[in-house]
Protein backbone atom coordinates (compact mmCIF):
# COMPACT_ATOMS: atom_id res chain seq x y z
CA UNK A 1 0.00 0.00 0.00
CA UNK A 2 1.22 3.42 -0.90
CA UNK A 3 -0.06 6.88 -0.16
CA UNK A 4 -0.99 8.98 -3.13
CA UNK A 5 -2.30 12.43 -3.61
CA UNK A 6 -4.56 12.60 -6.61
CA UNK A 7 -5.58 16.07 -7.69
CA UNK A 8 -7.92 16.89 -10.54
CA UNK A 9 -9.64 19.91 -11.99
CA UNK A 10 -13.25 19.53 -13.08
CA UNK A 11 -14.86 21.79 -15.64
CA UNK A 12 -16.74 24.80 -14.23
CA UNK A 13 -19.79 23.86 -16.28
CA UNK A 14 -20.51 21.08 -13.78
CA UNK A 15 -23.06 21.68 -11.05
CA UNK A 16 -21.87 21.12 -7.47
CA UNK A 17 -24.21 18.10 -7.21
CA UNK A 18 -22.70 16.54 -10.32
CA UNK A 19 -19.25 17.12 -8.90
CA UNK A 20 -20.20 15.43 -5.62
CA UNK A 21 -21.63 12.50 -7.54
CA UNK A 22 -18.41 12.21 -9.54
CA UNK A 23 -16.28 12.30 -6.40
CA UNK A 24 -18.29 9.53 -4.72
CA UNK A 25 -18.08 7.54 -7.94
CA UNK A 26 -14.29 7.87 -7.88
CA UNK A 27 -14.26 6.80 -4.25
CA UNK A 28 -16.08 3.60 -5.09
CA UNK A 29 -13.57 2.99 -7.89
CA UNK A 30 -10.72 3.21 -5.40
CA UNK A 31 -12.49 1.02 -2.88
CA UNK A 32 -13.21 -1.49 -5.62
CA UNK A 33 -9.45 -1.84 -6.10
CA UNK A 34 -8.86 -2.43 -2.36
CA UNK A 35 -7.83 1.14 -1.81
CA UNK A 36 -8.85 3.51 0.93
CA UNK A 37 -9.78 7.15 0.55
CA UNK A 38 -8.23 8.93 3.50
CA UNK A 39 -9.31 12.45 2.72
CA UNK A 40 -11.17 14.40 0.07
CA UNK A 41 -10.34 18.06 -0.12
CA UNK A 42 -12.69 20.11 -2.26
CA UNK A 43 -11.28 23.57 -2.89
CA UNK A 44 -14.33 24.68 -4.83
CA UNK A 45 -14.19 26.82 -7.94
CA UNK A 46 -10.84 28.53 -8.37
CA UNK A 47 -9.41 30.60 -11.20
CA UNK A 48 -6.81 28.85 -13.35
CA UNK A 49 -3.41 30.38 -13.93
CA UNK A 50 -3.92 29.87 -17.66
CA UNK A 51 -6.72 28.69 -19.89
CA UNK A 52 -7.32 24.95 -20.15
CA UNK A 53 -9.73 23.81 -22.85
CA UNK A 54 -10.94 27.42 -23.02
CA UNK A 55 -11.96 27.37 -19.35
CA UNK A 56 -10.75 30.12 -17.08
CA UNK A 57 -11.66 28.43 -13.81
CA UNK A 58 -12.41 25.00 -12.46
CA UNK A 59 -13.22 22.90 -9.43
CA UNK A 60 -10.12 21.72 -7.64
CA UNK A 61 -10.42 18.41 -5.81
CA UNK A 62 -7.55 16.71 -3.99
CA UNK A 63 -7.96 13.14 -2.79
CA UNK A 64 -5.52 11.45 -0.45
CA UNK A 65 -5.52 7.70 -0.98
CA UNK A 66 -3.95 4.62 0.42
CA UNK A 67 -3.90 2.31 -2.53
CA UNK A 68 -1.80 0.33 -4.97
CA UNK A 69 -0.69 1.27 -8.43
CA UNK A 70 -3.61 -0.61 -9.97
CA UNK A 71 -6.11 1.68 -8.29
CA UNK A 72 -4.25 4.75 -9.52
CA UNK A 73 -4.10 3.36 -13.04
CA UNK A 74 -7.85 2.76 -13.03
CA UNK A 75 -8.52 6.20 -11.60
CA UNK A 76 -6.35 7.89 -14.22
CA UNK A 77 -8.02 5.91 -16.98
CA UNK A 78 -11.38 7.19 -15.80
CA UNK A 79 -10.08 10.75 -15.61
CA UNK A 80 -8.95 10.49 -19.20
CA UNK A 81 -12.31 9.18 -20.33
CA UNK A 82 -14.39 11.69 -18.37
CA UNK A 83 -14.96 14.80 -20.44
CA UNK A 84 -15.40 17.12 -17.49
CA UNK A 85 -12.00 16.39 -15.97
CA UNK A 86 -9.76 18.97 -17.58
CA UNK A 87 -6.53 18.22 -15.71
CA UNK A 88 -5.28 15.66 -13.21
CA UNK A 89 -2.09 14.81 -11.36
CA UNK A 90 -1.30 11.92 -9.07
CA UNK A 91 1.72 12.11 -6.81
CA UNK A 92 3.11 9.39 -4.60
CA UNK A 93 3.75 11.06 -1.29
CA UNK A 94 4.61 8.29 1.21
CA UNK A 95 8.35 8.30 0.50
CA UNK A 96 8.61 12.06 0.75
CA UNK A 97 6.49 12.25 3.88
CA UNK A 98 8.50 9.46 5.50
CA UNK A 99 11.67 11.34 4.73
CA UNK A 100 10.13 14.49 6.12
CA UNK A 101 9.16 12.69 9.35
CA UNK A 102 12.64 11.23 9.65
CA UNK A 103 14.24 14.63 9.43
CA UNK A 104 11.79 16.03 11.94
CA UNK A 105 12.35 13.25 14.48
CA UNK A 106 16.12 13.42 14.01
CA UNK A 107 15.98 17.12 14.66
CA UNK A 108 13.98 16.55 17.81
CA UNK A 109 16.37 13.85 19.04
CA UNK A 110 19.26 16.16 18.48
CA UNK A 111 17.78 18.80 20.72
CA UNK A 112 16.96 16.24 23.44
CA UNK A 113 20.29 14.42 23.50
CA UNK A 114 22.43 17.47 23.22
CA UNK A 115 21.09 20.13 25.53
CA UNK A 116 22.48 23.56 25.23
CA UNK A 117 25.87 23.51 26.97
CA UNK A 118 26.10 25.53 30.12
CA UNK A 119 27.82 28.83 29.53
CA UNK A 120 31.49 28.78 30.43
CA UNK A 121 31.88 30.74 33.65
CA UNK A 122 33.73 33.91 32.99
CA UNK A 123 36.67 34.16 35.29
CA UNK A 124 37.10 37.32 37.15
CA UNK A 125 39.79 39.29 35.50
CA UNK A 126 41.79 41.41 37.76
CA UNK A 127 40.84 44.92 37.14
CA UNK A 128 43.59 46.68 35.29
CA UNK A 129 45.11 49.39 37.39
CA UNK A 130 44.21 52.76 36.03
CA UNK A 131 47.02 54.01 33.87
CA UNK A 132 49.03 56.69 35.43
CA UNK A 133 48.38 60.10 34.03
CA UNK A 134 50.88 61.01 31.42
CA UNK A 135 53.35 63.58 32.30
Amino acid sequence: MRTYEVAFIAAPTLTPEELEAFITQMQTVVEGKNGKVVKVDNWGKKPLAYKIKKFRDGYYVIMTLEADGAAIAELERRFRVADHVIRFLSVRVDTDLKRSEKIKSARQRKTVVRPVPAPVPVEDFEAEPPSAPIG
Partner: protein
Amino acid sequence: MPAPKRFSVKRRRVCKFCAEKITYIDFKDGKLLSHFIPERGKILPRRISGVCSVHQRQLSEAIKRARHMAILPFVSD
Protein backbone atom coordinates in the same frame (compact mmCIF):
# COMPACT_ATOMS: atom_id res chain seq x y z
CA MET B 1 43.69 58.64 0.98
CA PRO B 2 41.58 55.64 1.82
CA ALA B 3 40.15 53.59 -1.03
CA PRO B 4 36.52 54.38 -1.81
CA LYS B 5 34.27 52.14 0.19
CA ARG B 6 32.56 49.61 -1.99
CA PHE B 7 28.95 48.91 -1.23
CA SER B 8 27.65 45.46 -1.92
CA VAL B 9 24.04 44.43 -1.78
CA LYS B 10 23.70 42.17 1.19
CA ARG B 11 21.28 39.35 0.56
CA ARG B 12 19.76 36.87 2.87
CA ARG B 13 22.02 33.88 2.55
CA VAL B 14 19.89 31.62 4.69
CA CYS B 15 17.63 29.10 3.03
CA LYS B 16 14.04 30.01 3.80
CA PHE B 17 12.99 26.38 4.04
CA CYS B 18 15.83 25.43 6.38
CA ALA B 19 15.10 28.44 8.57
CA GLU B 20 11.40 27.65 8.79
CA LYS B 21 12.09 23.91 9.10
CA ILE B 22 9.94 22.97 6.17
CA THR B 23 10.74 19.39 5.27
CA TYR B 24 8.21 18.83 2.52
CA ILE B 25 7.42 21.42 -0.12
CA ASP B 26 3.83 20.97 -1.23
CA PHE B 27 2.86 21.84 -4.79
CA LYS B 28 -0.60 22.89 -3.59
CA ASP B 29 0.76 25.80 -1.59
CA GLY B 30 0.72 28.36 -4.36
CA LYS B 31 1.23 31.23 -1.96
CA LEU B 32 4.52 29.83 -0.71
CA LEU B 33 5.73 28.93 -4.19
CA SER B 34 4.86 32.34 -5.60
CA HIS B 35 7.72 33.84 -3.57
CA PHE B 36 10.09 32.00 -5.89
CA ILE B 37 8.41 33.07 -9.11
CA PRO B 38 9.57 36.40 -10.51
CA GLU B 39 7.40 38.53 -12.81
CA ARG B 40 8.11 36.46 -15.84
CA GLY B 41 7.02 33.22 -14.18
CA LYS B 42 10.41 31.56 -14.18
CA ILE B 43 11.90 29.64 -11.28
CA LEU B 44 14.10 31.96 -9.23
CA PRO B 45 17.74 30.77 -9.29
CA ARG B 46 19.11 29.91 -5.92
CA ARG B 47 22.03 32.26 -6.23
CA ILE B 48 19.46 34.98 -5.80
CA SER B 49 17.01 33.40 -3.39
CA GLY B 50 19.65 31.74 -1.22
CA VAL B 51 17.75 28.46 -1.06
CA CYS B 52 19.96 25.43 -0.32
CA SER B 53 20.46 22.81 -3.01
CA VAL B 54 18.30 20.18 -1.31
CA HIS B 55 15.36 22.51 -1.04
CA GLN B 56 15.88 24.06 -4.47
CA ARG B 57 15.44 20.63 -6.02
CA GLN B 58 12.26 20.01 -4.06
CA LEU B 59 11.07 23.51 -4.83
CA SER B 60 11.55 23.22 -8.58
CA GLU B 61 9.66 19.92 -8.59
CA ALA B 62 6.82 21.48 -6.62
CA ILE B 63 6.68 24.49 -8.95
CA LYS B 64 6.51 22.23 -12.00
CA ARG B 65 3.66 20.26 -10.46
CA ALA B 66 1.86 23.47 -9.55
CA ARG B 67 2.22 24.68 -13.13
CA HIS B 68 0.68 21.51 -14.44
CA MET B 69 -2.30 21.99 -12.16
CA ALA B 70 -2.69 25.65 -13.25
CA ILE B 71 -1.89 26.88 -9.75
CA LEU B 72 1.08 28.79 -11.16
CA PRO B 73 1.52 30.10 -14.69
CA PHE B 74 4.07 28.75 -17.15
CA VAL B 75 4.63 32.25 -18.50
CA SER B 76 3.33 35.57 -17.37
CA ASP B 77 4.12 39.14 -18.19
